[in-house]
């Protein structure tokens, strides 16, 4: 329970737009004429991803010695070359789809991303990555602030959160609908016909009487109003039936809905998806075919590959950027439970038609030399090399076309990681 987090609204919804003019459905036509939009899909790997098992420095002798059961043997990794520090890197064997995308130059790994004195708490860590503000991690989310910066009126469907509740990264004064499943996003009634219509019309009218002097109640009015205002457009997405079908995981189904929203051109540009289970303290089982970490990578790989291939077929890949984050990486040495404890810097992924694929930043050197600059915490954890806000800055500046210094409260622009 994050008490202070609730305070973020404090009248925020008072600013909620009561009369939004429905967007015109010109996008299909516009797209046919060559117009492009820029969609951002924020992907949260929940629990703290063990990036050393995702992107393995398989030739580092300390990788094997510090992870006697978890290290992926050199013969098993999917080799993708060396980074600028000449460290050979390989993907987890279950990431064959990501390797395909990498080989096509549309996938980037930004290594050793994090920040100084990185929190090892799931909750504080997630708050910091969500707000991009280590000093005030209870503030609004960085994507929420971006949405707040858009000129009004803002379409109530500008954002689409595929989880059931609002993630911190999207918190802002702009309400973002949570649409876990487009098909169940509907208004039901105990009656039918004219009575059901009358109920719905009444609910819509009630929701229009936002009590601006009661901010907590107004927040619930805002959610109600946004739900009722978006139902019909969302229902068009429920009919999206891509071929080939996406895998039957929650993650892949969420991505299918995202692709549906893009394909049906309902106006949404910012999406949030998540896949969890990365808090692998025990039985991480990196190398077993159906081990815990292999399954995590399988879910990630199969979902992203289906999404990538679908977007490519629809001509939408160039319009889309997927950016991943996780609250922390994990401890370098495995623990006694065949798992890894909370660590520090990690790896971010960017995927999209305009992404300049490749390996950015440098891998950590895992040796136990006390002077090893790439490690911290008595060589237990990976030290960050690229501030995660530099990655966000690039997304804001180069993809969303806004001014990152305003939204991030400082200049975090950094050379050498130009993945867009």
């Amino acid at each position, binding site marked *: *329970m*994050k*008490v202070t*987090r*609730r*305070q973020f*609204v404090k009248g925020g919804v008072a600013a909620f737009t009561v009369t939004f003019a429905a967007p015109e459905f010109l996008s299909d036509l516009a797209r046919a004429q060559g117009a492009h939009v820029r969609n951002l899909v924020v992907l949260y790997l929940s629990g703290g991803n063990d990036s050393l098992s995702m992107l393995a420095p398989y030739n580092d002798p300390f990788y094997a010695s510090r992870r006697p059961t978890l290290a992926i043997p050199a013969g098993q990794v999917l080799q993708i070359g060396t980074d600028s520090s000449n460290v050979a890197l390989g993907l987890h064997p279950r990431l064959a789809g990501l390797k395909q995308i990498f080989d096509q130059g549309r996938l980037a790994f930004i290594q050793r991303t994090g920040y100084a004195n990185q929190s*090892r*708490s*799931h*909750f*504080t860590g997630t708050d910091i990555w969500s707000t991009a503000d280590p000093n005030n991690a209870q503030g609004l989310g960085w994507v929420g602030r971006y949405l707040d910066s858009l000129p009004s009126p803002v379409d109530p469907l500008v954002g689409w*959160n595929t989880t*059931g*509740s*609002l993630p911190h990264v999207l918190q802002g004064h702009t*309400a973002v*609908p*949570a*649409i*876990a499943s487009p098909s*169940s*996003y*509907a*208004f*039901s*009634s*105990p*009656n039918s016909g*004219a*009575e059901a219509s*009358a*109920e719905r019309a*009444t*609910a819509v*009218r*009630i929701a229009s*009487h936002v*009590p601006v002097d009661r901010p*907590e*109640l107004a*927040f*619930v*009015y805002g*959610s*109600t109003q*946004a*739900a009722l205002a*978006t139902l019909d457009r969302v229902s068009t997405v429920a009919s999206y039936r891509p071929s080939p079908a996406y895998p039957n995981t929650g993650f892949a189904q969420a991505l299918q809905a995202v692709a549906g929203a893009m394909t049906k051109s309902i106006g949404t540009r910012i999406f949030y998806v998540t896949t969890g289970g990365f808090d692998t*303290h*025990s*039985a991480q089982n990196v190398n077993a075919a159906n081990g815990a970490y292999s399954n995590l990578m399988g879910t990630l790989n199969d979902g992203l590959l289906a999404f990538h291939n679908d977007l490519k077929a629809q001509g939408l890949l160039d319009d889309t950027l997927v950016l991943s984050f996780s609250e922390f990486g994990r401890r370098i040495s495995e*623990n*006694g*439970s*065949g*798992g890894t*404890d*909370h660590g520090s810097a990690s790896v971010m992924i960017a995927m999209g038609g305009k992404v300049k694929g490749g390996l950015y930043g440098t891998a950590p050197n895992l040796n136990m030399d006390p002077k090893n600059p790439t490690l911290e*915490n008595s060589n237990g954890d990976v030290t960050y090399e690229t501030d995660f806000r530099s990655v966000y800055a690039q997304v804001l500046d180069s993809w969303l076309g806004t001014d990152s210094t305003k939204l991030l409260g400082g200049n975090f622009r950094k050379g050498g990681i130009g993945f867009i």
Partner: protein
Amino acid sequence: MAGSDRQIEHLLRRAGFGARPDELSLYGAMSTTQAASALVDYDATPDTVDSKIGSPGYVGTTVTGGAFSPQSNINHARQRWLFRMVHSDRPLQEKMTLFWHNHFATGYNKIAGALSAAEAARYMAAKASEDPGQVRGQIEMLRDNALGRFKDILLAIAKDTAMLVWLDGRTNTKAKPQENFGREVMELFTVGVGNYTESDVYAAARVFTGWNLQRPGSAADGSQHYEFVYNAGQHETTAKTFSFAVYPDGGKTIPARSAADGMQDGIDFINGLASHPNTARYLATKLYRFFVNEFGAVNVTFVSRVAQVYLQNGGDMKAVMREVLQSPELWDASAYFARYSWPAEFVARALKDIGWSGFSVNDALTPMSNMGQILYEPPDVSGWDAGQTWFSTSAMLARMNFASSLAGNQKFNLATAVKKANASSTPEALLAYFVDALVTAPMDPSVTVELSNYLHANGAWTGSDAQLQTKSPGVVHLIAGSPEYQFV
């Protein structure tokens, strides 16, 4: 329900899950002080609620194939808990159990993955009396200790089978200390983030080395089960020093002990955490948000006073809750409807307000999931985010849609009740009846006008059975699905 005491309803929304008609009569005859005492001293009320499951006159449960088995089937366990929320005559015990469930948030799925679905339901929800190995699941332990001493609850949690799987204590050994429980016991269960250091986490992990599981009993008769064992051979025996006082004399170091005596490390540490002033404040803050007021800043006077009561009474939660339920902050007018209801609160209260006869709590489980709350499955060890987080668009739709399905299910009962109350003659009479039955945060007159317009829509008012069976569920749907009804 007309003319009922709004103060008692406020108390029962907070200390319980709203008010059934019989609860209103019972507590309505008392002063608020008497009612608060009666709620806290629930031991005086027989605990017979489980024996009512499946009886006529109570909300239903649904079992597909086999018997109702909450000790081994998590779906049944969820139904049993919802049943208790609606029908228990010890409402505060159920409310505190939910508070502790959120506080020591343990999720069924990880345990099911590690053991099995039936085993996970067992370690979460079984009652000792119904288990061949006398296993008492985590939530039953919390229920039994709902108003016990916090240090006893904390020790029981540290030895709880589900917790030992959930936060990996079962694999915490001398050679490789496991930090998961050591971190969360400070961050989330006691002193709170910012009041411990990373090296405290490593020390806490070492304190609990050897707090593992064993598996006694016989597979043949079903008594075989996992339970806590102190595994002396896996305990790390050196001294552990913390950045804060563990002992009453201010001592920060748990001394080196022999392996045989090493379990005392954990007991010392738990007692130290439980009596830490930051724990008192951390709990008082959570109690304020859960029982008193979620709006605005936390009331520091309340927190200081309740923390003091906690410390003076050795962490006795009964003394603490007696203070909370009689606190001026709870009874201040600004506290009325100053909480965003949790899905469990919304569902149980809607059942009490709208009716339950002929409804199965099984039909509330998927809606609750869509509202963001699955009992026995908090999203992570920090519990549910609560507050505004409950009110995403899809979660609000899920609430409106649950109100719709329950109102539709109860349409005959609702129409009958309206006639019995002589409230069928005009739309205004019907509206007045339901606005009184489903108490909400104050509604703006413009909202009431919309409800009235709905009742007038689609033809003249006749008060016929058919019309009552249409308009009653229709307006109940709109009221229970209104933003105002979502507050408690």
